[in-house]
Structure formats: C-alpha cells, structure tokens
C-alpha cells in the first residue's frame, strides 16, 4: 500500500490525533492526488484541529489542485472555511493569480470581494488587471476593498484612478477609503485635491473627518493648525484621538504653526483632567510640549508629573524634555526620587 493510500485511509480514523497526523502527512507528501481526499474529509470533519491540519496540508501541496480546491471553498456557507480558504490562497500568491483573475471575471460580488481579501498585503505587481477590474466594479464593497488594498500597498500607479473616484464618488465609505488610500500613497499633490473636495472641515460628517484628519496629519500646514484645533471642543470624544494626532503631527512638522494658546490649553487641560482614555490624555500632554514656552503651560506640565495616570506622567516627562527649558534637570531628578514606575523613571532620566 502506498503512503498516500495509507494516509487517506487514516483520515477516517476515530482518533482525532491520527486524523490530524494523516492530514499533515499528506501535506508533507506534497501529493496533488491527496487533495480530493482532504477536501472530502473537510466536508464531514467536525474537529477544528483536524480542519486546521487539512488547510495546512493544502498550503503545503504545491499544485493547482490545491488552488482550485480552495477556490471552490470560497463559496462555502461556513465563514471559518471561507477564511481558511482565503488564507491558503494568499499563501499561494503568484501561482493563484490566473485562477483569481478568472474568479474576478466570472464570480459573484461576494467572490470578487474575497479575491481582494486574498490579495490584501500582496504587492500589486502581476495583479494590475484584477485591480483595474475591481476599481470599475459595480459593487461598492468591491471598489472600497480594492481602494483600501492599494492604499496599504502604496500602489502609486493607481493614484490618478483613485483621485478620479474621490472626485466622482458619492458613496460615503468609498470617499473615505479614497482619502485614506491617497494618504497611504503619500503624494503631496493629492492633498490639494482632497482639500478642494472638502473645503470646510467644520461641516464634514464624522466618518469623513476621521479620514480627512489623517491627511491633515501627513500634509497639513501651519495655516491648518488652528482650523484643526477648533474642532476639539466641537466634535465628540470618538474623534478626539484623531484630532490630537493631526495637531501633534502638524506642529512637529511646522514649528511655525501659531496656536491660539489660551483656547488650546483650555481644551487640552479638559482632556487631561476629565477622565478621557489614557492614550488621549497622553496625546494632549504631548501637544503641550509645543506650547511650553508659556509659563502656565509649563506649570501645568510640571503638575502632570504627579498625575496618578502613568501615561500622563510619561507624556509630561517627554514634553518637558522636548521643551528643554532651563532648570529642568533638578526638577526631573527630584521627581525621579518619588517615581516608582520603571518607564516613567526612564523618561525622566534619559
């Protein structure tokens, strides 16, 4: 009896471990003839461990049979099976592309979307035709997924196409995805185009503002600083982190950005003192580093060194160091004597 036949028979063993080992052995045998047996077993297998082993075997089998079998599994009703099949096909990468092209051409909208899930993170070389088709798809989910993938990959050759979609798009999620993709691609000329599309930040709905603030973080100028800062008291807490992120990034890039210090300090103080999530409070204190030439800001940062929240203390130590005002070292050394957290101590003394 050949090894393959032996392993195929063991796929039906009562013992779960034996079935797992059999699937694994078929994978290591790298035998395309084992694929039908693995797929058959998958249809009736109840153990998740054995199912996992079957998919690992499909990854190991370097043959079209494993790709074709996995493509058939994309249509399964079981989302776990579909996810596993996506993973197998992602691992097959280049070899699977002709098969994925066919699915993109002939498959329904769910399958077309899954093709793009498979390609997520896979460099766009060799799959341009799939993306061209996806960007012109009639289903918005397919278009959005394609745009997201291209942004993640910084596929700049598609920048023009995505700018067109942004100009013409009316589907809100698609518009937001286009903005984020252009930010990912990182061409500064896109910013002007995004700005023209959304001239007034104050009237942007929240989901679009979140995407727009990412563009601000990357390209916003000194002139944009106060416009972004003005959003802080106006928008809900769910946007706070994105607003603070944009403010920090603009100011770090454009030291000349002049702030309305009084209003900004008041807004940031409220965030630090009113029990916002620790990471937001951290961001707020870090922004204050840029305003620390003002005595009241400096005094507030010093007070933050004694905050019960360690991320606030960490941010205060970092901000005071960044501000670098005279007399800082003795102050930090004195604080270090009372500090017990290792990382805060490190920030105080570095």
């Amino acid at each position, binding site marked *: 009896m050949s090894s393959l036949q032996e392993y195929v028979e063991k796929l039906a063993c009562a013992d779960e471990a034996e079935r797992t080992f059999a699937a*694994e052995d078929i994978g290591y045998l790298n035998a395309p003839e084992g694929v039908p047996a693995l797929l058959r077993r998958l249809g009736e297998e109840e153990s*998740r461990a054995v199912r996992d082993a079957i998919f690992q075997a499909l990854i190991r089998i370097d043959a079209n049979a494993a790709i074709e079998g996995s493509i058939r599994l994309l249509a399964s009703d079981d989302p776990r099976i579909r996810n596993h099949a996506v993973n197998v096909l992602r691992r097959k990468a280049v070899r699977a592309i002709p098969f994925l092209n066919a699915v993109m051409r002939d498959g329904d909208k769910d399958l077309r979307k899954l093709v793009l899930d498979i390609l997520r993170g896979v460099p766009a070389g060799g799959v341009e035709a799939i993306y061209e088709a996806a960007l012109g798809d009639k289903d918005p989910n397919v278009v959005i997924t394609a745009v997201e993938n291209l942004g993640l990959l910084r596929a700049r050759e598609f920048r023009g196409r995505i700018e067109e979609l942004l100009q013409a798009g009316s589907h809100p999620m698609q518009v937001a995805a286009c903005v984020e993709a252009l930010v990912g691609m990182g061409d500064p000329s896109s910013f002007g185009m995004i700005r023209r599309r959304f001239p007034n930040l104050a009237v942007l709905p929240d989901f679009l503002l979140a995407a727009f603030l990412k563009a601000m973080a990357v390209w916003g100028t000194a002139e944009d600083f106060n416009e972004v800062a003005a959003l802080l008291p106006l928008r809900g807490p769910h946007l706070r982190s994105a607003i603070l992120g944009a403010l920090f990034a603009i100011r770090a890039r454009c030291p000349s950005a002049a702030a309305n210090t009084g209003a900004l300090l008041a807004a940031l103080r409220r965030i630090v003192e009113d029990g916002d999530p620790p990471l937001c409070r*951290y961001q707020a204190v870090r922004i204050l580093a840029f305003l620390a030439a003002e005595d009241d800001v400096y005094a507030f940062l010093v007070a933050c060194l004694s905050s019960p929240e360690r991320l606030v203390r*960490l941010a205060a130590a970092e901000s005071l160091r960044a501000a670098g005002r005279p007399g800082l070292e003795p102050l930090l050394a004195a604080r270090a004597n009372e500090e017990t957290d290792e990382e805060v101590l490190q920030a105080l003394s570095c």
Partner: protein
Amino acid sequence: MPDLSVEQFQTLSQQIYQKLGLHFDDKKIYFLKTRVARRMAALGIEDPREYIFMVSYADPQGLEMQALANLVTTNETYMFREYDQLQAFANHCLPEVLSAKQARGERTLRIWSAGCSSGEEPYTLAMILQEVFPQAQSWDCRITATDIDENMLRKVVAARYGCRSVNEVPDRYREKYLIEDGDEYVVRRRSAALVHTLHLNLHDRMAMRAMRGFDFIFCRNVLIYFDDDSRKAVVDHFYNALNPGGYIFLGHSESVGRVTTAFQLKRFENHLVYRKE
C-alpha cells in the same frame, strides 16, 4: 527619538499581533516607541511611517519583524515569571483538572514545560504543584522539561540557580523549596524529583507526535521566535499532546487563538486561558 504617533502605535501593535501573536496594550506605547526608535536608528530610517510600511508590507521574510521581536521580548528567565498567569494555573486550572481526575479515580498528572531553557519554569511548576496539591507525593506526577539545547538540560538537572533566577520566588516558597548554598540556590530534592528532562526539538514532527497524554503544557515566550507556519505546526502538536480538558499556557501576551481555533477560550478572573475540549 522619532515620535511614534498614537495612530502609528496602534497600527504597529496590530501588525505585531498579526505576525507574532504578541499583544501590546495602550500602556505599552512608551515601551514600543523606545524599541522602534532603536530599530529605526539601526536601519537609518527617520520617518516612523516608513518603518511601519516596511515591517507591514516590505518584509517578506519577516526579518525585521523578528529583529523587533528580539527587542520587545526578553530572553531572561526566572522563577515565578508572569506571576498572574501562574496564579490562574494554581488557583483554577490545576484544581479543576485534579478534581476531574480524582472523580475518575485517576492518580496521574503530566505537565510539559516545552522550551524549558535552564529550568526555572519546570521547578516553579513543581513548587506550585506541591503547594496546591500536597498529595502530589502519593500520585504519579511528572513534569517533563524539554529543550533543544542539551547544555540547558544539564543546567536543569543541576537544579542550581543564581540570585537573579530566584528573585521573584515568594519568601515562603524559597524557604520551603530551595536551599541556600553560598550565593546560589539549589532546588530541594523532593521538588527536583518531579522534573524529568528530555531533549526535544519542537520542529521534529515525529518526536512531537510521541508526546501524548499531558494535562498541562507550558510553552511561554518560545513560539515568538518561530515563523508563522512553524508556530502553527507546534501548537497543533500541543493540541494532540494534551488530554481532553487539558490546558495550554503561552506567554501572557502571546495569543493561542490567533494560531489555532481548536482550543476553547476560558476566563478565570482577569485571565484568559485555553483548554482542549
């Protein structure tokens, strides 16, 4: 130091979780930022966005992710490391498994410390077992300590440790289970007798298949150094090596659920543990 924004921190933590199974919560922003700064300096990268793009999409062999992993994990091993996780073992998992065994009339207990290094973990487990379950002496209890490095296994057999290794051992345990010998500590014979060493390469498929019948497997802070496929293969073997109702413990920030869906997730107080159904 280049400033990693909060959004960049979140993106990077997500990537680290997806690729290494290590979870960094918000409290770890400074920790991760300082490590990333070191990697960026070593690579001559100034913009954190470039670094994040590289580890996410331009690192096909996973070399940079591994270099980062080496910085964000510690090779240091000491007794009672990750104390909270050991508490979940001592207070919940171990009593549950022992009760089930007693109800079935069984008197054996098998624990596997996989990738045991110089032995601090298996001896910690031996101390906990004796403390939680004094009847262990009349049962057939065995802690199998495996490692690929035979030099390490020789250290396990010697059962002799410096101060750094025993720093976190609670005083009561130290007096009861260790003997001070100059500037070293020796594990008392009764605890040492529970631990048996075995040379084992976790990548050796056939040797791994021979490991069966364990009630607990500890493999903490080992799999982070493996690539995705190897990690998955090892965890699948662990699944087969466990008895039904047995538990697996990876490092407290490592996720079993990301590697395989085969285990059942259980919560004891604040601890998430993985159990074979």
